[in-house]
């Protein structure tokens, strides 16, 4: 039995002047503990698909099953990380990371201690009482990761979480996020348009083609790359081979 199953997802946006089909015939299975990347040109409906999996949007057609059940937002099955950190500027770091637990009323001393210790494991000491604007971009995104993990979601969704960061910070965070997810054996879906990031972090890469968004091709990442942390994987000879393969495939998708 698969952990996450998408069956024939189709989604159409309606406006006064048009009906745009953003996604068509998306069927997909993800195993528990697997890290999958969605790669594709902009406008291929990747973010829409994430919102559908998270249960934020109802698809026009099709079903999403998590452990054979529909997704339940109230039970925090799903953690969602956005392009920017979206830490609440009027809340302290501690209030921010405990927000999810507060929302679903499961905050207790044990969970609080657990979350604060996770913050320290991310290399953030003595920032609990600070406000987000006192932290750098990389630190803020780490805080956002702690906030997402605090509710112990079964499935983690990362919507281009490193795209707003500088390259060096991004590489460091890739390693940190990858290690953290492996350690907790979390299943994750990463949306990106950075081929290198997709190869370095994931077990499987799914290439989307645009208008309407469909699954074009799926690339398994060789185990030599999978077992290495992202930064080391980038230096492996197999990395370039896969990079070129996906690059060519993406080129062929570009409209003339």
């Amino acid at each position, binding site marked *: 039995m698969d952990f996450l199953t998408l069956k024939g997802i189709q989604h159409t946006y309606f406006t006064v002047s048009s009906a745009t089909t953003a996604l068509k015939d998306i069927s997909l299975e993800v195993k528990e503990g697997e890290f999958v990347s969605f790669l594709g040109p902009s406008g291929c409906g990747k973010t829409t698909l994430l919102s559908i999996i*998270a249960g*934020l949007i109802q698809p026009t057609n099709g079903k999403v099953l998590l452990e054979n059940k529909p997704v339940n*937002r*109230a*039970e*925090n099955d*799903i*953690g*969602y990380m*956005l392009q*920017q950190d*979206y830490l*609440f*500027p*009027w*809340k*302290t770091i501690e209030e921010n990371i405990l*927000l*999810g637990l507060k*929302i*679903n009323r499961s905050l207790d001393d044990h969970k609080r201690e657990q979350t604060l210790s996770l913050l320290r494991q991310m290399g953030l000491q003595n920032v609990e009482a600070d*406000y*987000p*604007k006192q932290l750098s971009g990389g630190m803020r995104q780490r805080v956002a990761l702690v906030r997402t993990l605090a*509710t112990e979601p079964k499935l983690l969704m990362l919507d281009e979480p490193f795209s707003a960061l500088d390259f060096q910070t991004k590489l460091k965070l890739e390693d940190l996020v990858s290690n953290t997810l492996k350690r907790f054996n979390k299943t994750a879906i990463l949306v990106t348009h950075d081929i290198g990031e997709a190869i370095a972090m994931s077990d499987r890469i799914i290439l989307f083609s645009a208008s309407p968004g469909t699954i074009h091709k799926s690339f398994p990442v060789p185990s030599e790359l999978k077992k290495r942390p992202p930064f080391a994987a980038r230096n492996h000879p197999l990395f370039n081979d896969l990079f070129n393969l996906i690059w060519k495939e993406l080129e062929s998708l570009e409209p003339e």
Partner: protein
Amino acid sequence: MNQNNEVKLLHEHYLKELKREKRLVRFSQLLIFILFFACWETASKNQWIDPLLFSSPSSIWNLFISKSLDGSLAANLSITLSETVLGFIIGTLLGTCLAALLWWSPILSKVLDPYLVILNAMPKVALGPILIVALGPNMASIVAMGTLVSVIITTIVVYTSFKEVDPNFIKVLQTFGATRRQCFKEAILPASFPTIISTLKVNVGLSWVGVIVGEFLVSAKGLGYMIIYGFQVFDFTLVLLSLLVIAVFATLMYQLVELLEKKLVKNGSR
């Protein structure tokens, strides 16, 4: 070492310049104040302007002393002040609640949109006579007037700021399974807090207008009554005294709200 000294010297020079400028501004402000009252006094004494109509600072001061001693100024002032404070607090709270209601129900906000525009454009003080007949010629109708002038504009401004909150904050909360009520409490309201405080500043001025006009109409107590009474008995010294007192207290109230704003908005947000 040498360079350090030079930087220090330049900094001292900069601070000195800053102080000089500040002194100049303060001095000019004071000069305008003194010149204005001196010219007024002289012009009135020499009959260049009609002393019956424009009075003079010295006679206003004498009236101020006598009205202060017999307690009538303090009594009228305290009535007007409490009406204004009540009016603008109720106006701001009610406006914020209405804005919350509109945010809660997008259909309701679409339905009410043209009515809000009309109500906002209409001069609310024109409703004064109806209010006085409905609520009686007492404090309640004056407070209602102070509230009425500020409530609609507060609703519109605060509702606009509710709508402008970044939807991604809501998305974060929704992925945690937040209800609409929790979204409002955790994101919408705190994000709009600076706007609510700044409408408070606008409402201070508006409520003074509502209350003074209300007192004109009811003509029983307060600074507005003092103005209308002075006008009727042709005592313009009384009118001008009331005006000056209003100016001083409206400024004080504005400063107080600004102080409150600094205290409340300093933490984290923006």
